[in-house]
């Protein structure tokens, strides 16, 4: 009795300080994760929103037009300053302007301000003064806008025609010509047609008045798109935003990876990961079956198992070094000597490429697949195996008809985890075949269709390259955010699939092992 009383008197009222610090670390980790994801989402998706263009009048009478990017305190703490993206890089030498807030007299958003997206030099911002056609005909005001719009649609269809002609007629003919085919006449007509199209595109220019009052002529064929963001309704902006996202996903990069889309990088990432999973699945499953079902379960097997598990923790860059030394220099070098003698000294397989990258990543993710499959195999109750053998099945039949079907979800989990890991790895790829800019996608219409020796682009490396090697990092940042968001989304979806499968698996086998 006394004991019970004393302990009740001493029962602690709270948990003390430690419990709160522990709870706080959960909250802090979640906060960091949320902050990272929302940063990527807001900056990445916000980039495609057509922001309003502000016309800023300064105290000293100068004017500038641009999109406000951010506002920060001045270094000396006496006020704040704003960063405007004013475009017109070929005119002013820069596309950014820092303006102290105290120097701003007035800010307005006139609806006639125009943003031109161009092939080179980024965007141009100003007022439309006139459009001149190839015949010297000059139109001003509203008429100019209508003409410009027509001309843009025309140009888009001309560009389309040119690209189709080049890809489907000219390039295959050139290839055929090099291989000794007799297609010179066809090629000549196609080239003539191409020149016609080019000439049709080159005609005309527009006159732009910048915010500072300069008049400036821009050739029409340099212009990709025309927008009047201040005159747009939110719905229009949403449409433009959707188009921007689509172009980001479907176009190639422009202007040294600081503009345009990431389609080749998406393609390269997906292709490389697919090749990797084709390579890693059979070998991983084979090794797991050997370790769990065939090998004598002795000390050596246990050691090998631990070693394989540990290889999952070996840094990815070490796999990259192995890939470079063995696959690229070793096997690739020998292949070049045997089969591509004519092309030497320029290497064919003796340099980084799609095949070597996939092989390296397959090796890197092999332990993941082996461990996951083995876990699935170990979870299958022995009664199932014994039952199958007792009914007269051979070991092969027992494996293929009973054990492997039950372990399929575990294998899938392993492969998906491997894919998620491979999609995010960049360091080994830098050694074995990723390229800053690969003009040719590794798949095309030429035999053998899949070019394993070519270099490829990768989303992760694209982030690294655009963020650290570009000329104007400031300009590339929004695109890097968008690419990072895309990569994270892809990996999250893959991992969620793996988690779902694992959950499914554990409920299924939970039911099985109960007696």
């Amino acid at each position, binding site marked *: 009795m006394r004991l019970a009383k004393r302990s009740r008197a001493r029962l602690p009222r709270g948990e003390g300080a430690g419990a709160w610090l522990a709870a706080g670390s959960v909250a802090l980790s979640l906060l960091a994760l949320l902050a990272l994801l929302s940063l990527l989402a807001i900056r990445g998706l916000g980039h495609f929103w057509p922001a309003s263009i502000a016309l800023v009048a300064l105290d000293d009478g100068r004017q500038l037009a641009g999109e406000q990017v951010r506002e920060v305190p001045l270094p000396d703490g006496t006020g704040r300053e704003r960063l405007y993206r004013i475009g017109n890089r070929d005119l002013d030498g820069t596309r950014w302007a820092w303006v102290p807030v105290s120097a701003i007299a007035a800010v307005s958003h006139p609806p006639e301000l125009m943003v031109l997206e161009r092939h080179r030099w980024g965007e141009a911002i100003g007022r439309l003064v006139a459009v001149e056609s190839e015949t010297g005909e000059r139109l001003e005001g509203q008429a100019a806008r209508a003409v410009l719009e027509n001309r843009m649609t025309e140009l888009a269809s001309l560009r389309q025609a040119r690209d189709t002609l080049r890809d489907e007629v000219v390039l295959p003919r050139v290839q055929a010509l090099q291989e000794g085919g007799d297609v010179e006449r066809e090629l000549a007509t196609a080239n003539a047609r191409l020149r016609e199209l080019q000439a049709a595109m080159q005609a005309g220019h527009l006159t732009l008045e910048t915010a500072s009052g300069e008049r400036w002529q821009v050739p029409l064929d340099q212009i990709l798109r025309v927008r009047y963001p201040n005159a747009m309704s939110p719905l229009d902006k949403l449409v433009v935003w959707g188009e921007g996202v689509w172009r980001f996903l479907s176009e190639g990069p422009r202007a040294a990876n600081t503009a345009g889309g990431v389609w080749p990088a998406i393609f390269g990432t997906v292709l490389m990961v697919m090749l990797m999973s084709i390579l890693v699945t059979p070998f991983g499953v084979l090794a797991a079956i050997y370790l769990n079902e065939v090998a004598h379960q002795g000390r050596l097997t246990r050691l090998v198992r631990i070693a394989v598990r540990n290889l999952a923790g070996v*840094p990815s860059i070490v796999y990259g070094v192995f890939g470079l030394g063995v696959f690229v220099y070793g096997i690739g070098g020998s292949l070049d000597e045997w089969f591509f003698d004519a092309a030497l000294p320029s290497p064919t397989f003796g340099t980084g490429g799609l095949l070597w990258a996939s092989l390296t990543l397959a090796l890197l993710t092999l332990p993941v697949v082996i461990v996951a499959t083995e876990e699935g195999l170990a979870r299958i109750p022995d009664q199932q195996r014994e039952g199958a053998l007792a009914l007269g099945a051979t*070991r092969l039949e027992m494996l293929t008809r009973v054990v492997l079907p039950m372990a399929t979800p575990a294998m899938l989990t392993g492969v998906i985890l491997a894919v998620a890991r491979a999609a995010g790895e960049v360091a080994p790829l830098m050694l074995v075949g990723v390229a800053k800019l690969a003009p040719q996608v590794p798949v095309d219409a030429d035999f053998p269709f899949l070019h394993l020796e070519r270099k490829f682009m990768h989303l992760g490396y694209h982030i690294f390259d655009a963020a650290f090697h570009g000329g104007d990092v400031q300009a590339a940042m929004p695109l890097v955010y968008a690419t990072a968001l895309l990569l994270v989304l892809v990996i999250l979806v893959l991992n969620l699939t793996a988690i779902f499968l694992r959950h499914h698996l554990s409920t299924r086998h939970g039911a099985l092992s109960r007696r």
Partner: protein
Amino acid sequence: MPDSLPPSPVRRRLRQGRDRLATVLVTAGGIGVIAALLAIGVFLAVEVVPLFWSGGDTQTVSPRALWSPLQAEDDLAGYRWDPTATLGTEEPARVSLLPLAWGTLEAAAWALLIAVPLALGAAAHSALFMSPRLRSRLKPTLELMEALPGVVIGFVAGLVLAPWLERHLADGLAMLVLLVPGLLLAGALWSRLPPRLQQALPLGWAGLWLLPWLLLVLAVALWLSPWLEAWAFGGDLRQWLEVRLGLDLAVRNAIIVGMAMGFAVMPSVYSLAEDALSGVPRSLSEGAQALGASRWQTLWRVVLPAASPGVFAAVMIGAGRAVGETMIVLMASGNAALMTWNPLDGLRSLAATIAIELPEAGPDGLHYRLLLLAALLLFLFTFLVNTLAELVRTRLTRRYRRLGGVA
């Protein structure tokens, strides 16, 4: 129905033959795959040997050049890494791996300093206090965090966090200083709440409802920081650091690397430590609580000692990951091969050096072999650390089985 007939001897032989063939194939394939995996270590070791010992004319490097300081009159004395400028020239080779090893370990140490308290705190909370429903959601979430690619974390650290912290050093410091008191204040306030409110905000869900509180604490820290800077550091923290402590600030420095890599390493440490803590047989913690211990006392005196090998293994695996992480260090560290104690200076790690220099170093040169030696060091370190962790973990599972008895 052929299956109902007794099998003919030919067919039985065929089946058995197929079975034997498959077994042989699986064995050969399995051994082959495992051998290919294990060949990594062998390859690295074999390629590194000619660096130190060669039978013929190829150049070698003495082991002393790698680990001892350069004797020189000018400011090049000390440990230097500059192979591209010195290999193959008349100058003495500046190829000491020490600054790189130093950078690697420094980055890993800062990462662990940030990751381990966070991860262990989170693991303790979710193993003992958290409501099971929240836990079943939170654990996969934090495991997803583990899958975030290093290149994304490195980009955010190097191009967003680093410039921000350079401008707002005092804000960052104020946040760090106020974090712990803010959490303790939350606990103190909670225990004074009326019981109805306490039930509405249970400790089991504290991981979620502390989020707005943390935001509030961070906002207060931002608001207080100019005052703190004026009061403690004479108005300018950077100048104060430079004058008083002689520390100059690089934009991308060891602290940034530590924060980013801590963020990256934390989920794997958390996941393993949580497994170890929640794997402790329930009879132990229930017994302790029945004897009147609070849950925190149970954790500290009973669960943690029982699970300590598992927690140790988790930290080791975290260390292995931090040492080998490439992209985060490459993007957030500035890559200057320095050996200083100043956490606000840049660093250069072994892994980042390999990633930068190996594509330019042609095959079979001295530079190439030096970088392979760096890779071998990384391989050996992580392999040993992981083996240690794995051995400890298997022993722990056996111990749990014994402690848990038949149940």
